[in-house]
Structure formats: structure tokens, C-alpha cells
């Protein structure tokens, strides 16, 4: 069995990551199909699925966000595997995190009702990445699932995702944050120079109201800080657990290959468990023309056959060049399997398409 097949049958967590526009969501869903067919109760967490794929997964417009929906039409034979899908809602996940980490409703409400919190919970840079991981942790620790698959948000710097827990800890350890929140415990005025300058800068730039809200936000956050730090540590450990598997998805375009290389290096360097590389959207290689035929077909006058010959040459040229782009990725993938998937004649947008793709993956 390849490490990807092992992951589908044994891993508890799986993450698909890679540049935007290469078919991460489709790959995640197809891996989910494979796991369900192997008898596992599986949930796929996605961020921004294309509309028709979302419909196929039961995540259409009417579906409630942040709740798992069972995907119909997955034939699992005699075993009791199931596939569910869930659309990530960063704000709701953030809210749930705050509630979980608060010791009472009052503490939680202090954070949740703060206007600064309300503004940032959906838009804080990196919040989506962190929340994808946080939701993964929530689902994983619920004990309801054999396998949780997370389709990570598209990101130019996909590595951001892996560092999200550390960034949260870094934020909580920032001197300004410490000074602002320490003031509350001592009921003292803010005497720290850096912190008072920070507040002054915010006030000058954005007005007095936001200063109040900011201090309020940071202080209310302080109540749940211990929990947030603990959670960040757990998540960080979970991502490196032996039952976790990272799948890198790319396309043969040079920009995507460049990003995938960067990601593979980072996974390796930071010791995240890597289980396989999927290269998607590869143009099919036409059958070559024999020398004799090529000679006969050279220098045709314009006409339908010239269209055929030009198209054959162009597609061949692209298919050859794409395969050359992949050589470096193949080296970086090492022992892990590399699955090359053709650019299909039409996008995958239904369950039979996913079932077909899952058979190509494992």
C-alpha cells in the first residue's frame, strides 16, 4: 500500500494543501469518498467550494453553514462507511472557540459582544487559516469521526496555515498585549511605554472609541488566554501526529509548481507528516504521429486537416512541457506517491465524478 492508501484507511486527520485553482476541494472530497468506501465515517471540511461541487456535496445555498451534511449517493457496500461534508464558517468557529475556552457565559459574552472582536473574527488576516485548523481540532476531538479531512483555504503562502497556531501564541506573547492585559490584573493605569504609545497611535489614527474597544477586547481575551494557548499547543501537536497526513495538490503550471515546492520543503523541514502529492489538471498526451505520417502532414494548405495537425502539435507541445515541469516535484516528493491526474474534459461536479476520481487516487 502507498502512504496515501494507508492514510485513507488509517489516518485520523488529513489536510489537502496547495496553491489556489488546482482542485484541492475536489481532491479532498474524492479522498473522503475513498475513505467512506473503506468503511470509515468521514467528514470533509471545505472553505470555498465551487458551486456545483458544493451542491453535489449537499452544501448548496440552503444548507446550514458549519454543520455536517451527509453526502448522498456514496455506495459503500456492506460496510458502514459514511461521507459527510461541512462548510467552514470562520466566525462561528471563532465564536465556538471563545465559548469553549471561557469559564462562564459572562466571560464569553464580553469577548463576543466586543465590536473589535466582531469586526476581526471574520476578517483578521490569517483567521481563516487558523479557524480551519481549529475546526479540525473540534471535529477530531468530538470522537464522532473516524477521519476528518480539511480542505485548506487557498493561500499564496500556504505555509501560513501551518504556522497559524504559533502566530496566535506570538500575538498573546506580544509585549504590548501583555502590558495592556497586565494593567487589568493590577487595576493599574497602563504605565508601559510601548503599550501607551500603541494606544496613543491607535487613537491618533482611528479615534478614541476604537481605543476603548481595543483595550476591552484585549482584556476580555485575557480571561480565555490560558485556554487559547493550550489549544494552540494541542493543535500544533495534532498537526505533527503520526495519524495525521498532509496531501499536497498542485497543477503543472510553473507558478503552482513553485508554490508546491515551497510547501513540500516546509512540510519536510517542520516535520509535518507528508503522505502524497497529487498533480492535477495535466493535459493529455496525444498519441505521437509516426515519422512517415508527420512528413505527409507537413505543410498542408489551410483547411480542416491543417486544423487537426496544428491542434495535435500544440497539445503535444504543452503536454511535453508540463511533464518537464513535474520532474523537480517528483524528486521532492521522495518515497511518497505522486498521483498525476488528467485535465478532464469537463469539471467534476457530481458524486459519480468524485467516485471515479477516488478510484484514480487510491
Amino acid at each position, binding site marked *: 500500500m502507498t502512504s496515501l492508501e494507508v492514510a485513507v484507511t488509517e489516518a485520523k486527520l488529513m489536510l489537502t494543501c496547495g496553491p489556489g485553482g488546482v482542485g484541492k476541494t475536489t481532491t479532498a472530497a474524492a479522498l473522503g469518498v475513498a475513505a467512506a468506501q473503506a468503511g470509515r465515517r468521514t467528514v470533509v471540511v471545505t472553505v470555498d467550494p465551487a458551486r*456545483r461541487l458544493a451542491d453535489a456535496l449537499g452544501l448548496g445555498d440552503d444548507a446550514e453553514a458549519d454543520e455536517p451534511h451527509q453526502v448522498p449517493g456514496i455506495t459503500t457496500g456492506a460496510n458502514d462507511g459514511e461521507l459527510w461534508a461541512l462548510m467552514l464558517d470562520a466566525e462561528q468557529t471563532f465564536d465556538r472557540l471563545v465559548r469553549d475556552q471561557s469559564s462562564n457565559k459572562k466571560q464569553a459574552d464580553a469577548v463576543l459582544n466586543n465590536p473589535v472582536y466582531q469586526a476581526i473574527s471574520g476578517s483578521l488576516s490569517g483567521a481563516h487559516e487558523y479557524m480551519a485548523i481549529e475546526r479540525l481540532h473540534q471535529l477530531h476531538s468530538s470522537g464522532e469521526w473516524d477521519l476528518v479531512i480539511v480542505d485548506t483555504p487557498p493561500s*499564496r503562502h500556504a505555509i501560513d496555515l501551518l504556522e497559524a497556531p504559533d502566530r496566535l501564541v506570538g500575538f498573546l506573547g506580544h509585549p504590548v498585549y501583555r502590558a495592556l492585559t497586565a494593567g487589568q490584573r493590577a487595576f493599574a493605569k497602563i504605565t508601559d511605554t510601548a503599550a501607551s504609545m500603541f494606544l496613543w497611535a491607535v487613537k491618533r489614527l482611528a479615534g478614541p472609541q476604537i481605543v476603548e474597544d481595543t483595550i476591552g477586547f484585549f482584556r476580555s481575551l485575557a480571561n480565555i488566554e490560558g485556554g487559547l494557548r493550550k489549544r494552540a499547543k494541542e493543535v500544533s501537536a495534532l498537526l505533527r501526529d503520526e495519524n495525521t497526513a498532509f496531501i499536497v495538490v498542485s497543477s503543472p503550471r510553473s507558478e503552482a509548481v513553485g508554490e508546491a515546492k515551497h510547501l513540500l520543503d516546509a512540510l519536510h523541514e517542520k516535520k509535518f507528516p507528508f503522505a502524497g502529492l497529487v498533480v492535477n489538471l495535466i493535459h493529455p498526451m496525444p498519441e505521437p504521429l509516426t515519422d512517415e505520417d508527420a512528413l505527409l502532414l507537413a505543410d*498542408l494548405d489551410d483547411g480542416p486537416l491543417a486544423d487537426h495537425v496544428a491542434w495535435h502539435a500544440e497539445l503535444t507541445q*504543452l503536454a511535453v512541457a508540463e511533464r518537464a515541469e513535474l520532474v523537480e516535484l517528483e524528486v521532492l516528493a521522495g518515497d511518497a506517491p505522486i498521483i498525476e491526474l488528467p485535465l478532464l474534459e*469537463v469539471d467534476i461536479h457530481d458524486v459519480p465524478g468524485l467516485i471515479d476520481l477516488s478510484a484514480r487516487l487510491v
Partner: protein
Amino acid sequence: MTDWLTQSSVVVVAGKGGVGSSTVAAAHALAAAQQGADVLFIAVDGRPGMGELLGGREINDRDHVLQRKVGGPGGGTIRARSIPAEQAFGDYLELKGVGGLLRRAASAASLPMIAAATPGLEHLLVLGKIKELERDKTADLIIVDAPPAGHAAPFLRSASGLSDVVKSGPVLDQAQEVSEMLADPARCMALLVALPEETPITEMIELANELGDDLGISLLPLVVNACWPDRPGLDKSPAMAARSHKIKLSASAKSSLESAAAFGRSRLAQQREQIERLATARAEPIITLPRLATPRLDAADLELLADALASAVPIGATQ
């Protein structure tokens, strides 16, 4: 029909990841410079290699020349730079005449902390810097290669979004000035890019609705990138096609040509269908750019795309 290239002072180029929006932005810069415009190319979240593609060295945060006399003696200059949020912040403080104390405060606090307290601030600072460059007439045309993936809309929305949280102070003024620039088609327009496939076209329609209709940003022609050239001959089987040329194909030749043609027919059909769908959904004219048979574009490929943009006759143009 190339007036649109330099119709507004700032062009924000946006599209989902993987559709080639950075490449189209570069081709737009090249095409405008070939017509004599001095162009500043701004890589907001630039991928490596863009400076080289435009004939110069790697783009960094200092405005530098990539090419002069682009395309001949009458050609303009292409300059490029990136705008890191920290730098935009520093420049902004300087511009506001904020002296040492606030600047020290800012550095002590560090931008990430302030940005955490003021959502969208980083984007706004970058847009604010672009607005300054536009107002100072630093170039005939400023091309902004906007952040990719889902980030183009939040980037452009930062100005209107911030005013929900920030009720006073220079940040609010900045947000209003940026909103004014975005809403004025003589100063700023958006160039949206997609591929001729179902999902990218759907996302382009959504982005056009969001930027054009919700945010009030005027849209240039919609660019459908990487379109295969139409080859009507593919509709015939290789054997039928050969008959019109009075050639008899071997069985192997028929089979080889058909192995490529089957794929080509379905791609071309999909391409036609998706462009029609876009034309039905949006009133803007549509420009198609050719797909080049390489996964790695070089300067010569960019020339081809620039020529295609400059000579494009937008489909359904009403202006």
C-alpha cells in the same frame, strides 16, 4: 479599440488563484507602455519572477525601472514596485506630518498589533499609498496586481469596511479618500480575469457583481484568459478532414489525430459555452486572450499577450 488600456489612471487587475491575473496585469502594462504610456506596475502580493518577465530585475519595495522605450523609440517606460504594509504605514505617518513620537510609538507597537485592532488597515494603507501615487501623477498608468484567491474583494472592500469600525481620525479620512478614488472611473477601474471554464467564470461573475455592483468600481472589459484558438476543422473526423485536402490518412495517423481532437472538441465546446454564459450574465464587453502552449511564460510569450490585448476587439462592446 485600445483606448481602454489607458482609460483610467489606476487599473486593479483581479482574479482567483490560477487564472493568470498577474500575467494579464503584466501584459496590460507592456501593451500600454508600447503605446507610449509611462507605467508603474505594483505587485501587491507579487509572485517571484514578475520583474524578470517584464524585462528587468526582481520587484522590491523601491520604485525602479524595468524597461525604457518599450517596443521602440516612441515607447514608454515600465517601472515596478511592491508596497509592503509596514512601508505604507511609515509613509502614511510621514505624509500626515506625524513627527517622531507617533512614529516611535508605531514602531514600538508594531504594525501587526495596530492592524489587529483596526481590521482591514493593512489593505487600506496599501490602497492609500496607491491613491497617493495616483494623485502625484507618478505615472500615466498604474497597474495594480491585486492579491489573488479570495482576497481581491476584501482588499478593495477595506475602505468601506473600515468605516463601520472606525468613526473618526485620519484612518477614516484615508478610507473616504480611497473610496472616492475607487468610485471614480477616470481615476480607477478594475480588470477582471478568468479562464474559459465553468468554475472560474462563475467566480468572475460573482466578483464582477461584488466589485462592480456592490462596491461601485467601474469594470474594464472582462478578460477570459488562456482561450484555445477556434479550430473548426476539429468538428470533422480526421478521415473526413483529410478528404477535403485530397489526402488519405493511414490508420495510425487517424488514431493519433483523433486522440488529440476528442479532447480539443470538448474543451472548445466548453470554452464557447462559458464565454456565452458570461456574456449573458454581464453587460461588460469581453476580451479573450490566447492560451499559449507552455506551462512557463517567458518575455516573448508576454509580448504575444500584450499584442493580443492591444489589438483585442471586445466581444459585445457597446461603448
